[in-house]
């Protein structure tokens, strides 16, 4: 590390210890996620490194836990359910959330602050309370133990994220563009898809990703509302961790880490793109 010449000895020590602390915190953040990767290739049914693994014996490693996922009907159903529920909930949350964000960011909107606070509240209320309330209410409507009930619940949990990201994308939006389009005779639908949408697309897509992750990762509402037919990946992991811990869970966890890394890359790409749109480079 290069320091300016006027730095005293103690300032250099300070900077070095700062860097050391920062790296230690990064290690604390990353180690728990990285440690499960080799463990998921364990040939033995344990959650720990065996002697063979430490001496890099190739017999101590195996892919059998990954094969287990594919051969287990419960896991396959869980994967299917997670994607199906996640995609449906995302579609609802994205459409409704985007429309609402467009309305909310318009300065003529009445009671803007109050409505915003209400629409963002699903993000703040603890999931256990949401889940308990939904259990009471959805059971009365006959929606508990059905795909529809879970999709509606997850869509409600995902909308705040769409509102926030679309709102951010709209922060630099010039409303005279919309008025110009309407004034020149375009229909509202045409204006929406050809004038507004191209400018806020990165915000909409990252909001959709957030909504998807929210649903994909959610387990408390599932615990209360879902029947055995609607078990998702996190639900399956939850019961696995409570009942019989075996490395299949680690293999699933590693696959989920890979998936989140892909999502992170997508989000970062979109953010860079949104930045360029705002500064007018695109």
């Amino acid at each position: 590390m290069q320091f300016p010449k006027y730095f005293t000895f103690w300032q250099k020590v300070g900077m070095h210890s700062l860097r050391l602390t920062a790296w230690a915190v990064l290690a604390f953040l990353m180690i728990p996620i990285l440690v499960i990767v080799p463990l998921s290739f364990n040939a033995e049914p344990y959650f720990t490194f065996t002697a063979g693994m430490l001496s890099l014996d190739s017999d101590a490693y195996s892919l059998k836990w990954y094969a287990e996922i594919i051969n287990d009907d419960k896991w396959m159903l869980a994967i299917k359910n997670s994607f199906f529920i996640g995609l449906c909930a995302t579609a609802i949350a994205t459409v409704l959330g985007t429309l609402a964000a467009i309305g909310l960011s318009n300065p003529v909107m009445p009671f803007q602050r109050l409505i915003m606070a209400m629409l963002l509240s699903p993000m703040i209320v603890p999931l256990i309370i949401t889940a308990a309330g939904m259990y009471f209410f959805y059971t009365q409507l006959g929606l508990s133990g059905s795909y529809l009930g879970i999709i509606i619940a997850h869509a409600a949990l995902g909308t705040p994220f769409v509102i926030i990201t679309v709102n951010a994308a709209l922060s630099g939006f010039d409303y005279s563009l919309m008025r110009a389009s309407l004034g020149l005779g375009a229909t509202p639908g045409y204006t929406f898809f050809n004038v507004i949408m191209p400018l806020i697309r990165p915000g909409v897509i990252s909001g959709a990703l957030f909504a998807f992750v929210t649903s994909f990762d959610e387990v408390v509402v599932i615990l209360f509302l879902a029947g055995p037919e609607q078990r998702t990946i996190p639900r399956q992991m939850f019961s696995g961790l409570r009942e019989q811990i075996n490395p299949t869970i680690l293999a699933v966890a590693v696959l989920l880490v890979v998936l989140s890394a892909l999502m992170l890359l997508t989000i970062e790409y979109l953010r860079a793109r949104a930045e360029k749109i705002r500064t007018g480079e695109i």
Partner: protein
Amino acid sequence: MHRAELSAASTGASGGGATPGLPPHSGLSAAEKSQSRRVMRRRKLLTLAFVAPLIIFVLIAFVAPIGTMLYRSVYHPTVAQLIPETLAVLADWDETGEARPSDSALNIFTVELQLLADDRRSGKLAEEINRSLPGSSSLIKSSARKIKPLDPEMLSRDGASKLLAMQPQWQQVEIWREMKLAGALFTNDFYLTALDLMHNTQGDIVARDTQIYVKLYMKSLWIALLITLLTGIISYPLAYYLATAPTRTANTLMVFVLLPFWTSLLVRTTSWIALLQTNGVVNSFLQSIHAIGEPLELLYTQFSTVIAMTHILLPFMILPLYSVMKGIDPSYLRAALSLGAKPIPAFIRIYMPMTVPGLSAGALLVFIISIGYYITPALVGGTDGQMISNIIAFHMQSSNNWELAAALGSLLLGLILLLYWIYDRLVGVSNIKLG
């Protein structure tokens, strides 16, 4: 705070009756004014049409369930549905007196108890009354058993004497008082239980002998506070380092913060189980370097709850801190140093006050999230690391005391909304940024 107030002020000004874009004294005719008002109203309606679908959706899918829960915490019709006739006659009886209800009231009760015994619902009544008057369960159940074979015609005339002959405890006033009180449709009993209070026989509110829930609320608050402090202490140096590092380095290192942020909660909890269990990675490592002889009991303790939740919530502290620190001009600190301040006092008195907005935003966020946490304590907490959410789930799923779960949940909700309101005042919910 200023930003939130400013945006509120500007909305207020343009959202009011005045027409934006036109100066107040523009010399418009009355017709023009009314036309502009009409245009304005149409624009407002159009905007509302965009937001309305989501408002309706959230009202049905989210607000109504929460409302149902609040209602369930005070509405308790079980007893009223079990013995409606008895309660109707008990309404005229003075429960503060020394005398038990009249024989005719008892006759009606025996008839109803027989009906309950026939549909196997007498146990439900026993359970409900037993909750406020311990020991009454066996009395009600055995009476129901003995009354079941008797002739209903005879009971409606002479049930009282039969009942008193079988079980003289029915002479006592307490059991009738408890039945009358339990028969009310709306009750604050569950809130009292949730606060470790109860009605005594005189109807006054007194503390219970065993304190369960208040202690649990205190423990949850304490755990949440501890996690908030830990995340604050751990995040500060990292956020400072990232904010002062060259942009390229900072962006690369940011991946190590964001990847955990994006990783599934269950995955991170799984990792901590793998790390902390008796034969887990941490114990094996410590044993292999001979730091410890016997493996430590790390998992299923309060310690494991705190460390796993600190890890999970760390990004929520780092991200707001980083974004605030990024906006602080380093020349302030340099100016203080060149004017002769010592580095540490300069850092504490010049730099740290400027990071308070980020710190308070992160702290409130972490505190709000951790106070209502369920999954991680349920999986790694054992009995020691349980929080208030876990007892709510227990009453929902295992003990089936839904009303108590609803009351406990409503109290937690009140606490969260208070914090949310503070957060809105301090930071502004519209200013939440993601990623």
